[in-house]
């Protein structure tokens, strides 16, 4: 067990090191653009060169790489040329905002999706199953930008119940987070419903469930005690992977609603060529990705004793 965890942690570290090197190399070829972005399009090549020298970009790349890594280890992610503040000042705040979005998404999605998935999978082919399945396929098939437009048209323009953007310019406003969460819920939730349903249906067809029913156990007990635990293994992995999705897939939703989260930060930085922000965001995204794999592996092990044994 411990060896397994140590090995996984080692892999995580290796992936992150490789990613940082790739990132650094990409930007080595793009330095002039950064200078152009910062100084404006009418500046001369010499001015840009001078700026790069002043900013220390002309020092040997290896030295700068280690300097940067050392800084990161100490919690210093560098300086954002676009936002004109240290990356630290925006990164954690933006991550917090996306975490809030994620919290509400998971708080709603997990119980709802599992409930509908289980209800659907208990009796495969029933009317209830078909209605839920069609609904889930429908919501997952609609891309976020389309459902965002659709929900905005209904709740902002038609009913006038909700604000149209979610920038939280005057501090926290719960009403502003409803539409982004709803869009993510429709898209991600449908997927989890489908996975839970498939898993539940498979479990319901297994011999031990049939035996439990035949030996006269109450149906309710069969579902709750025997079926559910086994049926939740697959959805658990899917839900853990949603963490990853949240960091990349959330960009569309955040940009649409002008929500100041991690997604908009990464997009703006990518468009501007804001090196340190991109590096910091990518590091965080990769960290969350490998961490979620790590957690899903561990969780999977607890849910499925066969893996633990092997």
């Amino acid at each position, binding site marked *: 067990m411990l060896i397994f965890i140590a090995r996984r942690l080692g892999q995580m570290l290796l992936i992150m090191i490789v990613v940082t090197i790739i990132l650094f190399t990409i930007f080595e070829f793009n330095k002039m653009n950064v200078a152009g972005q910062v100084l*404006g399009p*009418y500046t001369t090549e010499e001015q840009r060169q001078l700026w790069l020298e002043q900013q220390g970009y002309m020092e040997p790349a290896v030295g700068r790489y280690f300097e940067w890594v050392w800084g990161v280890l100490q919690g210093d992610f560098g300086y954002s040329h676009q936002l004109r503040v240290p990356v630290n000042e925006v990164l954690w705040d933006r991550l917090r905002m996306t975490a809030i979005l994620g919290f509400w998404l998971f708080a709603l999605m997990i119980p709802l999706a599992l409930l509908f998935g289980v209800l659907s999978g208990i009796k495969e082919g029933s009317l209830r199953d078909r209605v839920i399945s069609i609904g889930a396929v429908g919501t997952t098939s609609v891309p976020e930008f389309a459902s965002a437009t659709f929900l905005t048209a209904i709740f902002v323009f038609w009913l006038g119940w*909700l604000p149209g*953007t979610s920038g939280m*310019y005057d501090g926290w406003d719960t009403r502003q987070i409803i539409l982004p969460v709803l869009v993510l819920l429709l898209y991600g939730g449908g997927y989890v419903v489908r996975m839970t349903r498939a898993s539940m249906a498979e479990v319901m067809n297994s011999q031990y469930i049939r035996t439990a029913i035949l030996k006269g156990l109450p149906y309710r007990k069969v579902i709750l005690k025997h079926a559910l635990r086994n049926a939740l293994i697959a959805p658990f992995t899917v839900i853990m992977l949603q963490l990853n999705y949240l960091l990349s897939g959330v960009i569309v939703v955040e940009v649409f609603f002008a929500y100041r989260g991690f997604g*908009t930060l990464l997009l703006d930085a990518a468009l501007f060529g804001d090196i340190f922000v991109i590096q910091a965001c990518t590091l965080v995204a990769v960290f969350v990705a490998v961490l979620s794999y790590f957690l899903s592996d561990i969780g999977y092990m607890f849910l499925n004793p066969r893996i633990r044994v092997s």
Partner: protein
Amino acid sequence: MNEDELKRPKHPAIPKLAEDLRQGKMSRRDFLRTSTLLGMSAAASYSLIGKITGNPLVAPAHAGDNGKMGGRLRVAMQVQEMQDPATFDWVERSNLSRHIVEYLTCTGADNVTRPYLAREWEASEDLREWTFHLRQGIKWHNGDDFIADDVVFNFERWLDPATGSPNMSLFSAMTEEVNGERRMIDGAVEKVDDYTVKLRMRTGQLAIPENLFNYPTAIVHRDFDGDLSANPNGTGPYTLAEHRVGSRAVLQRADRPYWGEDLDDPYIGGPIYLDEIVYIDVGEDGSSHVAALQGGQADAVYEFDIDNLRMAEDMDDAHIVTVDSATCTVMRMHVNEPPFDDKRVRQALLKAIDIPAYNRLMFNDEGEHGEHHHVHPIHPDYYQLPEMEQDIEGARALLEEAGYGDGLEISIDVGNVGGPTDQQMAELWAQHLRAINVDLRINMMPSSRYWEIWTETPLGATQWVHRPLGTMVLSLAYRSGAAWNETNYANPEFDEIMDQAESILDADERSEVLRQAMEILQEDAVICQPVWAPRFTAAKDYVKNFPGQPTLYHIFHKVWIDD
């Protein structure tokens, strides 16, 4: 006052203008525009028009005494960095700074340029020497007096190639080329006394006052260190309280009385009503702007496009301001790069176009037909040229002659810098070009990425904002070596015509000369510009006097909130 102004005119041409107006040779609006440019006060011009024609032109309404003091105006607009006004390349940047740092002149929603930091000005008869008299008693936020040194400092900065300012091209008549580098002519700017500045040009220039309201010409303090957001010292009614790029900017009423409060001017004079102007960044998309307005998060928006017009029209508590403007997107070629270095190729690419289709399909005929020369019918110096007809056979023959009889593959960089309609325009062009066996591929990219390469791409779709005169935009974009010359077009004959046009006072006479420049641009097929887009902005009904300036420059001195 009128009689006085005629007896002692600010410029020798004013009595002739008055005579032209009397004889009906000049429109009232042209008279107003030209006489104010030559130093006559707007109030006197309006009044003189009424006297001469018996039919007064109504001056823009004052907010009057009904305006309510206080309140906060929230405007949805991109919040970008705001370091050096001299190098601004987005109007949005200048909108953030426009209430902090001010301009020597001001062009209102009526397209008339009036005095601002400059009290008045005179031009020599040949329009080569301009004298600006500055207002006295204006103070910078740090307590310093606003004086001629500030103006001289700004001109010297703009005309120093190290600054990298587009104003270098705007005031090219004040520069000369030495050893392959453009620099300011010695003595081009002279401080006569603390409140008088003299500008000297190589050639006569009519549009100096108008150029002085172009968005990178804000006057900064003589000790300006290059970063306005860090040190927002201005002469304007507001100061910067908060500035978070990509999020929001807050302008708060400065802690000293505004110098313009006693001024009689429909745009900048009178009481300043708003306590605070807040810009919120809801991204680039027009639909987010309209959604923010509808959802009550913004009281006004910077701009939205035709795609969102229907949605905006459905709002029952907001009003749309339609702006007459020469803002447009041009699909321009690098005329020195193959295959566009062959004039026949460029001509063929334009001949294949069905001009009316663009306005019809893209804008439901709400815009205007373009003529590939970048001068709009609302420009006083516009000249109506014969309409360009689609000529597929002619286009094919030209391509054949140029050696592309078997077809041609080209690609255009589109960053939708003028909105999603840029892409539609490129797609329509691609469709038209298929008829002559030209495969136009569209390379989409984010707008910010496009602005990185806008001068470098061989073929790209660039948005140009409105400028009050046709000469201004042609000079900025198509003169040899101009900073914003994105086509690399260099034609001494064109430059000469522009020199000549810019020295002519009479709008009709000038349009005769400018006509030659427009014809040259059409003939040389430098740009593909088949349509003028309509522009829209909107505000809630409780926002009073929300202006629809042709360039969407924000001047909120008269805006008040009726709660």
